[in-house]
């Protein structure tokens, strides 16, 4: 079911008497239950796009439809009502500093005039959900960044939103806290099934939690699709740059390792169950060849495990190529590489 429909959104604002196009005729569909990532470098328009969904930014042109209601056509009162079902969290948390954790989470319930007994129970449940039991009477100033974001998440979920908008929600946090917040978001998605739209400039955030992703540049969506497709086979130059890849080349540094000009190098990507299987060792043994791992990542992508490696194979050409064919047959992606410039250790994808 389609939950969010942005139709031909153009956003122009004046900056020093010069019109700046923040969004240029963007159309976007987000399905209910998805975790949808929007990625791009700073100034690409991704935050503006997110803030258009709850009309914190009013587009110059275009329509915004959320959960079957055209928000751009609603009068102010009704828009305020509709916003109660759209949760939002921010990079800098934006908690009320004069209110306790409990009062902060209760805030949207008070706005929606939920009776106080019912609101109290709801606050308890929400604080349990985000793992902040016992912090009810603390003030935001007494909390760490991660804890503040947990309060903000509880607050955003208070009125059972149909969608949770995350605006660079982990960008102000250290890597460990980022991981715990991402885990929490995935956990909440599993428990509540709430749709999430995640704006970030970090590819790792997209790869860890998103199912679909849109890549933005200069106010336009330049590429979108399933996370696995976009991250493993990026088509746009921006997506490649965000992934740290150069066009047709894979940057690699292997200090102290001499890559021979006739080396049999390949990039191997194992997805899903294959990532955790001993398939590489088995195939190598079957064909009587060996390999050296020059670089490698094991991570989760679109909810699935994957591993991504650069391998230098040792053995005769026919056996190595037979091993590559075998790997492709069992479902691995294998692409031969060539050393592009010996001094810089850049690998060029050849096939």
């Amino acid at each position, binding site marked *: 079911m389609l939950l969010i429909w942005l139709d031909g959104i153009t956003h122009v604002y004046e900056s020093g008497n010069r019109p700046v196009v923040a969004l240029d005729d963007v159309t976007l569909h987000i399905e209910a239950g998805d975790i949808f990532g929007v990625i791009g470098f700073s100034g690409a328009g991704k935050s503006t796009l997110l803030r258009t969904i709850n009309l914190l930014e009013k587009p110059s042109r275009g329509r915004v439809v959320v959960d079957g209601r055209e928000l751009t056509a609603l009068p102010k*009162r009704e828009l*305020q009502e509709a916003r109660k079902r759209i949760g939002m969290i921010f990079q800098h948390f934006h908690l009320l500093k*004069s209110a306790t954790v409990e009062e902060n989470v209760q805030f949207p319930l008070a*706005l929606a005039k939920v009776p106080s007994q019912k609101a109290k129970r709801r606050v308890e449940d929400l604080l349990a959900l985000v793992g902040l039991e016992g912090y009810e009477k603390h003030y935001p100033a007494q909390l760490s960044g991660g804890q503040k974001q947990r309060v903000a998440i509880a*607050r955003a979920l208070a009125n059972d939103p149909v969608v949770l908008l995350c605006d660079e929600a982990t960008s102000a946090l250290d890597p460990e806290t980022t991981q715990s917040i991402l885990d929490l978001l995935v956990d909440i998605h599993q428990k509540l099934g709430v749709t999430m739209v995640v704006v970030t400039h970090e590819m790792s955030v997209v790869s860890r939690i998103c199912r679909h992703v849109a890549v933005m540049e200069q106010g336009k969506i330049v590429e979108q699709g399933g996370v696995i497709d976009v991250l493993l086979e990026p088509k746009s130059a921006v997506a490649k740059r965000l992934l740290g890849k150069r066009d047709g080349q894979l940057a690699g540094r292997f200090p102290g390792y001499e890559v021979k000009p006739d080396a049999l190098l390949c990039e191997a990507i194992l997805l899903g169950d294959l990532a955790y299987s001993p398939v590489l060792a088995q195939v190598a043994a079957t064909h009587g060849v060996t390999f050296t791992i020059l670089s490698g990542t094991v991570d989760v992508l679109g909810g699935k495990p994957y591993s991504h490696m650069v391998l230098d194979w040792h053995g005769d050409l026919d056996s190595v190529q037979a091993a590559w064919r075998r790997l492709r047959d069992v479902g691995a992606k294998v692409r031969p590489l060539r050393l592009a410039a010996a001094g810089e250790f850049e690998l060029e994808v050849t096939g």
Partner: protein
Amino acid sequence: MFSDITWGQIGQASLETLYMVALSTIGAVVLGLPLGIWLYLCGPGGVAANRPLYQVLSVVVNIVRSVPFIILLIALIPITEWIVGTSIGVNAAIVPLVVGAAPFYARIAETSFREVDPGVVEAAQSMGASIWQLIFRVLLPEARPGLISGATITAVTLISYSAMSGVIGGGGLGDLAVRYGYERFETGVMLLTTALMIVLVEIMQWVGDRAAYHFARRER
């Protein structure tokens, strides 16, 4: 040393000053706070930004603030008469004190609201807060320490303003200091009344600071 003056008069004057300052501070806050909220909301970057309206309000506030208090005191006599029924005495002095201090407090309140994190205001809007909910549930609680400090500054300023109210028979310590101490060269009276006013200012500042600290402490 105190030829023409008794301790009873000094006690009476102290009470008059307290009465005038207390009532006019309350009046200044009651009028100035809504004006400050209005200035903030329609000001640059405000939730209901309205440039022409802001400029009109701003000019009115600046005009009242730039008129010397002694002139305001005289100029407001007809209005005072209409409100209080008389243009002399302590009660009559409260009207110009309020009119003079309200725009002053409005500016302080406006500044306090501007110091509220705009992100928090935006978060409240994203949760569907109406403008009234924004005022009562976000702006007032978040700006509270600044609003309290501002009321203290206003009260202290009103102590010195109230000294001029002697012109319309307002009474109080300042009036005593001017009429007996200054005009009749009774140095003793002048020193004593001035000392009492200093004590009064110290007490008010201390109370105000404590109150502001009480609310700000947990927010740091």
